[in-house]
């Protein structure tokens, strides 16, 4: 029996997904999911490795819209002249992920669908056995909140924050055909089932329509290159003065505040962002500090907009 599969087309990948229903893991770059396998957090028998599908690796601009293949590596995105020139926010977000060597393997599609993280869940099996499993593993309660029945693990995708701030859309291939939806709509406010994609669907492309008039990006983490984000803020203002501020790393899904600059105030922005963030103490940084840093980052963005 063969357990590792390297399809050469999306059609083959979808047929494999159908065949191994419920017992497969999709590898994009594999830089994150490989750790889940080592820690016995992912025990599916079949691996479907998308790295052999060349058609998923592309950067192209058609009619003013940037199209990124889901298997484009973060390094290719950073090195692209087109992206550096017209979409520096995407390049900046990609550059803030992991290390230069990992970025040569890690993909944009993989980063958008990176699993939610929590200090009580993303640990070795021995650690989890010692501490007591949480409800996302085999336990019955959330260890972070001391017994709640919801999972609050954090969405830690940096590129998701940037692409949502840019109003990106994604293309999904399913056995029934192609569907497109705004990226922001796929994330669910749940730590366990963090997206609403159908089981046998493959993210194939990301389309970015907006070339923003202004952009801003900042990421908070304990150790550069080592840690996942503790707070990522990506913000854009388009030619119609619509501000799109996206926060990630502080809640179960990215938090988007979208409002015209005419009516937006700093207090209003901070209040909306803080209200929507379900931040709990599940990161290396203390909870109080992370909450305070939301205010600090939003204030910095607000000041930068006023200066511009």
């Amino acid at each position, binding site marked *: 029996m063969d357990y590792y599969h390297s399809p050469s087309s999306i059609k083959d990948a979808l047929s494999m997904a159908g065949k191994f229903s419920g017992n497969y893991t999709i590898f994009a770059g594999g*830089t994150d999911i490989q*750790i889940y396998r080592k820690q016995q957090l992912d025990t599916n028998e079949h691996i479907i490795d998308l790295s052999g599908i060349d058609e998923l690796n592309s950067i192209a601009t058609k009619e003013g819209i940037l199209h990124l293949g889901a298997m484009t590596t973060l390094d290719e995105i950073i090195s692209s002249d087109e992206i550096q020139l017209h979409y520096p926010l995407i390049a900046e977000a990609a550059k803030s992920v992991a290390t230069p*060597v*990992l970025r040569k393997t890690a993909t944009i599609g993989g980063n958008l669908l990176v699993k939610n993280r929590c200090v009580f869940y993303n640990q070795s099996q021995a650690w989890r056995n010692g501490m007591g499993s949480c409800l996302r593993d085999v336990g019955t309660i959330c260890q972070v909140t001391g017994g709640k029945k919801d999972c609050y693990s954090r969405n830690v995708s940096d590129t998701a924050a940037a692409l949502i701030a840019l109003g990106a859309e994604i293309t999904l291939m399913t056995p029934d055909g192609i569907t497109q939806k705004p990226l922001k709509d796929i994330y669910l406010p749940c730590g366990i089932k963090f997206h609403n994609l159908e089981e046998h669907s493959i993210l194939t492309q990301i389309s970015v329509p907006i070339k923003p008039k202004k952009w801003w990006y900042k990421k908070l983490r304990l150790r550069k290159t080592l840690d996942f984000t503790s707070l990522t803020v990506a913000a854009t203002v388009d030619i119609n003065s619509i501000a799109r501020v996206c926060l990630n790393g502080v809640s179960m899904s990215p938090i988007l505040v979208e409002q015209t600059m005419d009516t937006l105030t700093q207090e209003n922005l901070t209040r909306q962002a803080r209200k929507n963030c379900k931040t709990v103490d599940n990161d290396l940084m203390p909870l109080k500090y992370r909450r305070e840093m939301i205010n600090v980052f939003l204030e910095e963005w607000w000041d930068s907009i006023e200066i511009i």
Partner: protein
Amino acid sequence: MGLKQIELTVNGFSSPFLVQSDEVLLFTLRERLYLTGTKEGCNQGTCGSCTVLLDGKPVLSCMTPTLRCVGKKIITIENISSGDTLHTVQKYLVEKGGLQCGFCTPGVVMTMVPFLEENPNASREEIKEGLSGNLCRCTGYKKIIDAVENAAEEMRS
């Protein structure tokens, strides 16, 4: 997970192997081929000690499925020098004392060789950024960066 017979090209030699379906390249290199120059540090993609070249591109072998490497050229630290002549990066690491315990050194070399080929005019800051995924537990970063800077200078001339 079952065993699978594959052919890998490592350091210019092709040989058939039996590997586990979910095996990572680091395990194959160290435990099946006894190429122990590639080090196992964190085993979770953080420390850079296990860096090897896959079709000329640096990858972390602890995160790379072995079966993904079929049909590709793998170069490990054992093949980076030309016989007894060290690669320029290796030479300067020795000359400038760019190592203490030496555990991270294979990873540093395998990261910096393609980096300097790609960025021959890299500044000190860019070298630091390029090395940001290589952890030295002896914290001897200054001399490592000095050595790489010297190597870059010689490779340019």
